[in-house]
């Protein structure tokens, strides 16, 4: 999704940062998907162990996750500066406080 109109510079930085935070939140879910994928292939039903193909898939996916985490942590570090307090506020302003983090009262 792109913003409807070009935003002034600081606003755009903020906007990019929020999307980065979204990515950081989604990355582990994507990782879970990758890790669980081998279960869906069900090689056992065909009577194969398929250790090699499964193993190369897993280790490649693993490296991919590491690379993604590397890029993301650098991007977050660059956009957020050094003040951790700020990025917390910024990222959480993005999510309504009554959202999923709250739970039932």
């Amino acid at each position: 999704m792109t913003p409807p109109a070009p935003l002034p510079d600081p606003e755009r930085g903020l906007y990019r940062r929020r999307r980065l935070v979204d990515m950081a939140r989604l990355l582990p879910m994507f990782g879970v998907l990758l890790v669980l994928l081998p279960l869906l292939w069900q090689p056992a039903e065909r009577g194969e162990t398929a250790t090699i193909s499964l193993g190369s898939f897993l280790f490649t996916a693993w490296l991919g996750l590491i690379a993604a985490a590397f890029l993301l942590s650098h991007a977050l570090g660059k956009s957020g500066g050094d003040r951790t307090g700020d990025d917390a506020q910024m990222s959480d302003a993005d999510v309504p406080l009554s959202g999923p983090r709250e739970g039932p009262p």
Partner: protein
Amino acid sequence: MLTFNALLLACLAYVAFLFAVAFAVERAADRRRMAWLSSPLIYTLSLSVYCTAWTFYGAVGYAARSGLEFVTIYLGPTLVFVGWWVLLRKLVRIGKAQRITSVADMVSSRYGKSRLLGALVAVLAVLATTPYIALQLQSISLSFDVFTGTGGGPRADGVETAVWVAAGLALFTILFGTRKLDANERHAGVVTAIAVEAVVKLVALLAVGVFVVWFVADGPSDIAARIDAAARPEWVIRTDRWLGLTMLSAMAIIALPRMFQVLVVENADERHLATASWAFPLYLFLMSVFVLPIAVVGLEVLPAGLNPDLFVLKLPLALGQDGLAMLAFLGGFSAATSMVIVAAIALSTMVSNQIVVPLWLARHGGTAPGDLRGLVLITRRIAIAAVLGLGYVYYRVTGGGAELAAMGLIAFVGMAQVMPAMLGGIFWRGATRRGAAAGVVTGFAVWLYALFLPSFGPDVLLSTRVMAEGPFGIGWLRPQGLFWVDSLDPLLHALFWSLALNALAFVAGSLVGAPGALERVQGVQFVNVYDLQPATRGWGQGAGEADDLLGMAQRILGTSEAQSFFRDTAAAQGKAGYLPDATPDFLERLERRLAGTVGSATAHAMIAQVVGRSFVSVEDLMAVASETAQIMEYSSQLEAKSEELARTARQLRTANDMLTKLSVQKDAFLSQISHELRTPMTSIRAFSEILKEAEGLDADTQRKYAGIIQDEAIRLTRLLDDLLDLSVLENGQVQLHIDDGNLGRLIDRALVSSNSIAPHRVFVIDRDHAAENIDIVTDTGRLAQVIINVLSNARKYCDAANPRIDIRVRLRDDDMIEVDFADNGSGIPRKSRALIFEKFARLTDQAQAGGAGLGLAICREIMVNLGGSIDYVPGQAGAVFRLTFPRVLTPRSDSRPGADAAQAGAEGNLSSTPDAAE
């Protein structure tokens, strides 16, 4: 061939090297801060305590038995780290905000600082970690046996090896793990040793891997062919185990005591997590990548029936690579020892903070005398030895026969029981203490019954009959077939039922009951940790307790640390001296400071004992009750504003108090000075009139009267001198004569000079000549004047039967010197302390004192002019005066003579007024 002796020698040399590294780092860290110690790299490497001997030896064995399944143990943590933004960041933030010292402390703190929950989790942690420590001991014994079996040296008994290893580890941990009392402080030596071991084990495993892939086999494609050839039917991925183990390891990376220790407690900077989010998964990846090749080649090359847990060692040995085998041995040794060290530190902190200290306080009460620090330290040391002892006992009882991976997984499932309470605690405000306790107890019980007790083997703790038919023949209560679920293997069965029942009890317990006020406040602080920057207050405004609080804090934090904390707080409040107002904010900060040493539950209880109450303020209730973002934001803005207003009001009040006080002081000063001048004047006038008018006085009487006139005139002159001195000092017009001197010699001189006061009293003087031997550059004459005055006061007022004066000198890091003069008298009553530095302040009647009461006022002005201060240190046995001054006094610039000093003098005056207002 490697002999046993060569092995032992290498092992000892390696251990000595680790000791040396830890020792050198501790010494260096004591002297100055070492920047590289708190780098993200060291943090990531210290996280590698996750990879224990289980990874190093067990993973290969696991791969040989079950194929790819071993990676689940590393994929779970990878997912947690890659998703650091969601969970780990929050954990670390909370850990810092609340000064959490362990997993048990975290759970206890979240649920209203509950002592019961803390103790419960601590017991669970000790029990769950026992098999894990046994695993490490077993792996070290096994690896020793490999060499003694093949080498020609004397055969060592495996059991004996384990004893020596356990004892050595206990020693190391006690030496370097209990040096700092504050569990929040980083253990620099241990962390560095762990980082070194992390590198050694990685290099060792990679070396064996490279050797196997490129030297034994012909590169990756050959390995792939061999893997295909070696594949067995058991290697097929089983959905239930794949899911269960990935989830289990993801929970373990947070809940295991040692992981929580390095992840949260020893974290120096939240930003290090960002680096660890990719670097730690990379470490795990590198540790795993060669596991399957080593396993496959091991299965091919080594004789069948060999314990596959030892392939990493046996493979290089069988192929004649002694050097590589030695490296592998040291790698495994590193993996095992680093885990045991960190686990022992984490567990000992838990045992002392959550079990022993609360029990001790419950028995003796918070007001019992004695230094609590000693108790805490000794408890931690004993706990370390006990934890290692328990691990050894488990190892002996189970006979060391189990697979490494199976033993590790038992520990994982045990600690996973903390997760519902912990995750629920940081994401769900509705979680309550009752729910958490119910969940942990349920999960703990199921784990004990279904996994831990059976792990000792049949007929050791649970009879074969119970295992097969259930207790009293009740089939659906069989430890490994609860509720007729037989399809899962024992581990998954225990994992499933313990976590399911745990979560159920947790949610049900939370939904049924209502949380207490403190619990709700803590709940908000945990769940909304990012929003609520300023601390929510749990303490009411109190007054007059700061003295008792200081006494208590000294017993826990140590005298000088507690004093400097109190002094800094007082300074921040705009007060001089050591006793700040017991504001809610101060109590909150003190509680967190204490929590770093004794845990949050104990710290809370101790402060409650002194302050006597803890209530929840309106702001807290607002924060708890508010359900919408607007109110949250509004309230935090209000809080910031009201804080600012309160600060301004306090400043105004202080200023107003001060002005009133100054006006009163001025009047009092004038009337005092008239009085002081009038008394001698009256007698001079009377006697001179007699001399002038009375006839026929004999020569003796004349001389006597003239003598009285002279004495009174001298007294008058002295008084005027003092006043002049004081006024010069206060206006900063004093000329300082800065010269070199030696503090010890200065004190010698002062002692001699002050001996003329009350010469009939014999004082025992206790000095530390070595510490006093400091060269100083200051106005030594003025300094000596102050010391003489303080010593004379001690001689005059110390009311002990066997009077003594202790003189203690300390050179602080900032090149300031602190000199304490402590006598063993009854000290100065609390209400008078604020007055003693005022002009004409005399605590006793004039006859006894014999001075005008200007001495300490002059001392204070001199010390201000010397760039230091004189303070009364409360909370000690007798009267203690502390002089603080720079070792080298740099002269003020003379461009604006008087201006700075006048201000300094004025500050000296002002700073004492709030004290006086008490």
